């Protein structure tokens, strides 16, 4: 049996079938939650944002254009929700300890994981417009073109901002002495 396409599930939701929406949640809550977690650096806030995004998506389902992917649509909604949240908060929180997952082999990978953990902290400190690009490119593997489509930015701007974001991240890591510590 093949899985139903997102579009079919959307149409079933529009017909009032909430079980179809449950299926969409199953498919996409993980990436949306992780996006929110990286963006706002707080576990509870990420839960709230994920919930808000899915509820808003449900309310606006009839505005979903079937020409586009459902995931792109909801992901874009999530990015906007996170940016609005950060704008409202206007302060930097530290990462929640639950955010950084445990190493599979702590002894062997200790340094790498420690480094990775610290890099994530530095990502959390980036300005929102750069942070979102690092997340989309490095955590969610979107291409320049896909990022441009989702953020409504020309591909050229995506590249230049992403490259600046990396430089800022590298500087932040260097300032924290992270690179020097781990070498």
């Amino acid at each position, binding site marked *: 049996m093949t899985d139903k396409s997102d579009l*079919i599930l959307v*149409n079933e939701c529009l017909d009032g079938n909430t079980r179809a929406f449950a299926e969409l*949640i199953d498919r996409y809550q*993980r990436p949306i939650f992780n996006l929110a977690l990286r963006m706002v650096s707080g576990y*509870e806030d990420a839960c709230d944002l994920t*919930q808000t995004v899915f509820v808003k998506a449900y309310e606006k389902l009839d505005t979903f254009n079937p020409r586009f992917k459902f995931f792109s649509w909801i992901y874009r909604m999530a990015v906007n929700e996170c940016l609005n949240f950060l704008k409202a908060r206007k302060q930097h929180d530290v990462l929640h300890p639950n955010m950084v997952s445990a190493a599979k082999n702590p002894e062997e990978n200790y340094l790498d994981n420690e480094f990775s953990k610290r890099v994530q902290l530095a990502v959390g400190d980036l300005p929102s417009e750069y942070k979102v690009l690092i997340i989309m490119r490095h955590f969610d593997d979107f291409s*320049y073109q896909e990022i441009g489509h989702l953020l409504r930015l020309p591909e050229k701007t995506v*590249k230049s901002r992403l490259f600046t974001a990396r430089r800022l991240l590298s500087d932040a890591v260097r300032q924290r002495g992270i690179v020097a510590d781990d070498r």
Partner: protein
Amino acid sequence: MIDEKYFQLINEDIDGTLEPKQRLKLQEYLHTHAEAQTLYDDLLRLSQALAQVEKVEPPMELKQAILREVPAKKLASRKDLSILQSIIGSLAAKVNFKYAYSLSAGIIIGIFVFALVISSVKDLPPWDISKLAGSIFLDSVLDSVQIADQKKFAIGNAEGTVTIEYARGAVIAEIDLTSRNAIEVTISFDNQNLDFEGMRQLSHVPKTVEIGESKVRLTQTGEERYYLYFRDKGRNISTLKIHVQTSDNYWEGTLLTRQRPN
């Protein structure tokens, strides 16, 4: 100081989008520029560290929390529901993780929304619902939507885009309109080839709607998107004619309901 051009090449190499020829050029540059080599090493290491970050599983209860919230939200947006359903929906909705006050606020808003619904029901336009019967969205049909035709217009204070989509026997006219003043939009179709199934709009009910044998006419102001659904009887490629009338000007466009075969 790293040359901007090579800064770009470093980043493109990190992303794996650099062509072999350019890669060679970059490597030559890195051999002779220690600062660039350091940046390259740092960015590569950062990229590898970011790639190692594992996804975090959302809490188990998150899905249920969302599902408890959605039926109430959806019900609240429909004008024809009873107050009882709205109130039950609001009460059943789970409050956010952090904001415990939202339940009480929700009840107050629910009462307010109900008052608005009651007052607006009286103002609803006289819909001809006889033509709206039948299935508008078929699960299997919209799986293969293709754009058949698209046209944009701008006249005076009104502008918009008309997109015709086709999907296995269904034709959808998606009409995006923005107008500062009232405009009249008439959609004419060939009823030999197309059966009008129904329409929906995103937010506001249009001021007036008339549905005839081969015409749908509506008036509206502001920004709105309409979807008109037709069943394609499958005989020939048909056309939809859209006429947009402002107080002193008009635009008319004819759009195909299917792509012409090559």
